[in-house]
């Protein structure tokens, strides 16, 4: 499959990239790892006349952890996310999630920025970023602004990102030491998108759940922050009754499409199962013992 022809641009700074994007307008697309865009270009569902490659912009790369705050440059690859021991120490759910994305070759080029910015409901990082209450920093010709991950996704492939903006940085507060976490993903095979997946982060204090945050992947047009599901756990010992309530609250907000991964009702149930498993594992990891 041969994609449509385009002019290739390799800016070496963020202002240059923003200027190009503003000047070239709707005919231009930025490319990070390209593993979502290039397949679309091969199918000619995307036909940009200009491709702006972000790979030479050093300031878009790297992971910084300082003062309890994690900052990840948009062009950081999934392989680099996995390789960072410092990141795995303060926020292990990132590595756990990245390891469940695609396969080694794809992770070598696929970036965290592309994963969150593309707006594909099948991508895994957006729900995780919602669970972590992450903030995305974006830059355009008009300047910079920040958007909460929980406000970013509008519909499948539609986000709060304007056409002339580039998502540059992802940032979030590291969860407190000793927190419980789990990313549970059911997929038919390695490389497939989730039938359903759930991210859970929680903290326990004296046997009771102090905070809980739950988000879902690929069971709606957008990633879903399951606020009521998290609230169902807070104050409980995360016993069976509380987990049942959380699962029910999570299932209630899903609206999956029927596709090769199964009928809608099945995928809703799988989402519930993923939420249950993720809560149970997070509880155990937070020192709350087996349910």
């Amino acid at each position, binding site marked *: *499959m*041969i*994609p*449509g*022809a*385009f*002019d*290739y641009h*390799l800016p070496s700074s963020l202002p240059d990239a923003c200027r190009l994007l503003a000047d070239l307008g709707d005919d231009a697309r930025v*490319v990070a790892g*390209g*593993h979502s865009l*290039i*397949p679309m*270009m*091969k199918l000619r569902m995307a036909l940009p006349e200009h*491709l702006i*490659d972000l*790979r030479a912009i050093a300031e878009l790369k790297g992971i910084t952890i300082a003062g309890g705050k994690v900052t990840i440059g948009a062009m950081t690859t999934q*392989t680099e996310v996995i390789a960072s021991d410092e990141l795995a120490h303060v926020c292990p759910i990132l590595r756990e999630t990245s390891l469940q994305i*695609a*396969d*080694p*070759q*794809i992770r*070598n*080029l696929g970036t965290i920025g592309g994963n969150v910015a593309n707006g594909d409901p099948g991508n895994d990082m957006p729900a995780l970023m919602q669970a972590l209450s992450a903030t995305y920093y974006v830059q355009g010709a008009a300047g910079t602004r920040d958007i909460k991950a929980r406000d970013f996704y509008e519909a499948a492939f539609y986000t709060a990102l304007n056409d002339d903006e580039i998502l540059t940085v992802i940032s979030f507060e590291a969860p407190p030491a000793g927190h419980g976490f789990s990313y549970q993903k059911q997929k038919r095979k*390695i*490389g497939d998108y989730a039938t359903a997946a759930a991210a859970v982060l929680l903290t326990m204090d004296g046997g009771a759940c102090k905070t809980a945050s739950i988000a879902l992947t690929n069971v709606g047009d957008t990633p879903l922050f399951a606020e009521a599901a998290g609230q169902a756990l807070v104050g409980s010992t995360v016993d069976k009754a509380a987990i049942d309530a959380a699962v029910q609250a999570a299932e209630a907000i899903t609206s999956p499409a029927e596709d090769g991964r199964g009928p809608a009702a099945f995928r809703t149930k799988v989402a519930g199962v993923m939420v249950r498993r993720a809560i149970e594992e997070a509880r155990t990891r937070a020192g709350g013992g087996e349910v």
Partner: protein
Amino acid sequence: MAKMHVQMTVNGEAVEALAEPRTLLIHFLREQQNLTGPHIGCDTGHCGACTVDMNGKSVKSCMVFVAQANGAEVTTIEGITQPDGTMHALQEAFREHHGLQCGYCTPGMITRAYRLLQENPSPSEEDIRYGISGNLCRCTGYQNLVKAIQAAATELSAAKEAAE
């Protein structure tokens, strides 16, 4: 569209060519460099038959534009064979352990395993299966692939120890 000037190092040799930016790296290698070792399988980034090494990492060359590979260091299966034509330990092991049947996935599989063994010189069976999860084989059932990669890992580690 205008062609661009492309420079890269392929199997240790400097290569210069004109190519349209939209040329996929696999097409550039196969059609302009006559390196037909890496195969085109699915053409959708799933099967891994087109796997090459780019800047020290395994990539699927059907999912990379030549423009993105400009300036890169690329190794294909042709570059894994010793310059005198002697087969690499992985190639020997694939033959010895019947790690292929039709052979279509083999160049990508060996190129991926080549990098895997540099990232992890003594992988467990699970490490190998996870490490080659981006490469599909529809013949072997993977058993003999895993055995071949394990055997090559042992062979390469022994050779390295002997050299030290």
